[in-house]
């Protein structure tokens, strides 16, 4: 019974992962393998002045996106967990951003945020908030934060729904008991609800980190890494190195670094959160 799963994991997960590790120690020229067993790709990566900027942008992307998704998701879930007709309707409507295809979402936001024809900039100007329409995606100072905002809008619905379900599963007796004991709303939320939803909360946080790391379509379609590389993140830079420059060795080395960073981040987070699960047990 378990064999098909083993084959699938080996064929579709371990096999490609092994290939990436192997490629990271292989020298390629225009897609042609010329030498194996070299650190040249990692050395090239470290010597690349762009790499530091890519790491910085990626940190903003992953941490900003994850934090935004879970904090906003938790806030929305707390509201949507309240039983009422309005929240019932909203629980369905909130899924709308989630069901749109990635490319459609990216193109729609790209045009809404465009400096000359975008509705967002024009609205801000009409309201007198800005003197002229702003170019949100053309300004290197804004672009990463705008991308983070869009990705939060895109990813938050599912996180909200998962957390809503978790909050609604918290036994009502516990909440009533805390109130009888004199706890206010914040104390009930902090000391009763949060420990009860610690596991799903951890799960969605980890999933968010992985989503952010793997996300490519949204930043690539919206900015292509620009302007002036100010929104170049790991996924887009790996794509550029591998499929535009055909530096597959360097791209693989970057993927390995990416994977190690993500693994370290997730391990650290899980280690910290393990205490919460222990408390619940």
């Amino acid at each position, binding site marked *: 019974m378990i064999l098909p799963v083993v084959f699938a994991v080996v064929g579709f997960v371990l096999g490609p992962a092994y290939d990436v590790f192997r490629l990271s120690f292989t020298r390629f020229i225009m*897609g042609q393998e010329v030498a194996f067993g070299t650190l040249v790709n990692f050395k090239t990566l470290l010597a690349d002045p762009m790499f530091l900027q890519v790491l910085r942008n990626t940190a903003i992307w992953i941490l900003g996106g994850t934090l935004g998704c879970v904090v906003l998701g938790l806030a929305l879930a707390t509201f949507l967990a309240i039983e009422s007709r309005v929240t019932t309707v909203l629980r369905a409507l909130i899924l709308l951003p989630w069901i749109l295809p990635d490319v459609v979402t990216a193109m729609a936001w790209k045009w809404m945020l465009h*400096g000359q024809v975008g509705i967002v900039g024009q609205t801000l100007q009409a309201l007198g908030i800005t003197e002229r329409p702003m*170019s949100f*995606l053309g*300004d290197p100072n804004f672009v990463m934060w705008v991308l983070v905002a869009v990705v939060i809008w895109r990813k938050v619905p599912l996180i909200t729904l998962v957390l809503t379900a978790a909050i609604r599963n918290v036994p009502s007796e516990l909440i009533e008991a805390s109130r009888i004991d004199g706890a206010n709303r914040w104390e009930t939320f902090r000391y009763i609800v949060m420990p009860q939803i610690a596991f799903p909360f951890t799960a969605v946080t980890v999933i968010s980190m992985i989503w952010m790391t793997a996300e490519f379509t949204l930043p690539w379609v919206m900015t*292509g890494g620009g302007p*002036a590389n100010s929104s170049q993140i790991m996924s887009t830079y790996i794509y550029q190195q591998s499929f*535009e420059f055909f530096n597959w060795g360097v791209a693989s080395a970057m993927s390995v670094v990416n994977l190690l960073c993500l693994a370290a981040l997730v391990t650290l987070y899980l280690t910290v959160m393990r205490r919460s699960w222990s408390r619940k047990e």
Partner: protein
Amino acid sequence: MRVTRRHFMSGAAGLAVAGTAPLGLSRPARAASGTIAVWKFGGTPREVEFWAKQNEVFLKANPDVKLEYSYFNGQMRRQKMQAALQTGQIPDVIVGFGQDVPELATFKAIQPLNDLAGDKLAGWQERIVPQILTNGNFDGKLYGLPVYVDMAPFLAYNIDALKEADFDGPPRTWSELRDYAKKLTKPDRPGFAFPATTAPGDINIFESVAYMNGGRVYDPATGKVTLDDRGVVDALQFYVDLVKDLSTPSAASMAETNFRDTAQLFAQGRVAMWIAFSWLNTPWGTPETLNWTGAPFPRPDKPSGGQAPVNALMDSSAILFISASTQNPEAALSYVDFWSQNEQLLMWDGDPEYSRIPAAKAAWDTPELAQKWPSWVEAYKGGTLFAGAEPIPRFVGVTQVETALGAAIQEAILERKSPEQALADAAAAAQQQIDLLK
């Protein structure tokens, strides 16, 4: 468009000599057999439709040939070809871009046509404009058969806007352009716009301006990236000056507006002039009410680059290659030869397709082209259309150099770095990437 297109490129006479050899006669393709795979990348909707239709004609003329034809977006050609190289699944015929010739040839994905074509070569030379046919050359050999080219840089301008500002003709020099742009600028309509995203088309447009100034992006003799050449730096300074004059949309806005979007802005009357390839607004159309035309882009007042100024860059974005690994070279050659016939090449004679500069000598004698682009025909017949024109920069590693250049253009116009600094950094970054290829 109205009568204005008749005057398009009225100043094209500044460009130099073209051959006007006698018309070639169409010859039927030699009978061939077997299966050939053909991948076509890019093209306007009219072209894509026509290509598929003419494939049927080819099959009727070659009943023993089976054609496996696939069409792909032009922007994914490098990825598709690289995947094909890795898996050994290169199609027999590739309809790609001229800029790819050095890489495809160097990595032996395509083969020279000189020997393979045999007596067909004379027919190609007879039917195709020689300056356009050279776009298929690399290392002294012919690797591809172009069916048209695009040229840059050109200027599209709103005739009514110019009249309103008391100009009776387009600007001729860079300093005139700055002056025009300032005077044409209104609070809700900048005088001039240039596309400045990292899209290859936007970068190619800038390259054409830099080459016009005697700049070069790469020296094939030394293998050195020359983005910091004076001609390139001054061309970028020219872009920056236009932004500082406040006669363009904001720099941030142009950094997110590619050539298609800039064409839309011009069509909507949101800018008075813009720089483009020879197709200008034709692939997307303009409202009947917009009174516009095109002209050669203004020249630098005094070219400052170290090389000879180039009047225009030619980009052949439909060029037929034959795979080096084809198992059926005769059928592949028949297909290429089929597309060298006037019946096919006249697709680009102004009817139905008028966005391209046709490769067929015969196209330049058709009433359709004369009606659509009278000044092109006049310049061609006067021997000036292709004078001083060169193929677009192409060498192994061109993508790396152009990617670095795209970032440098944005850094300079956004005032994050001076043009000198941005291009020096870009040259260093591109050199590092190019050296990886050695």
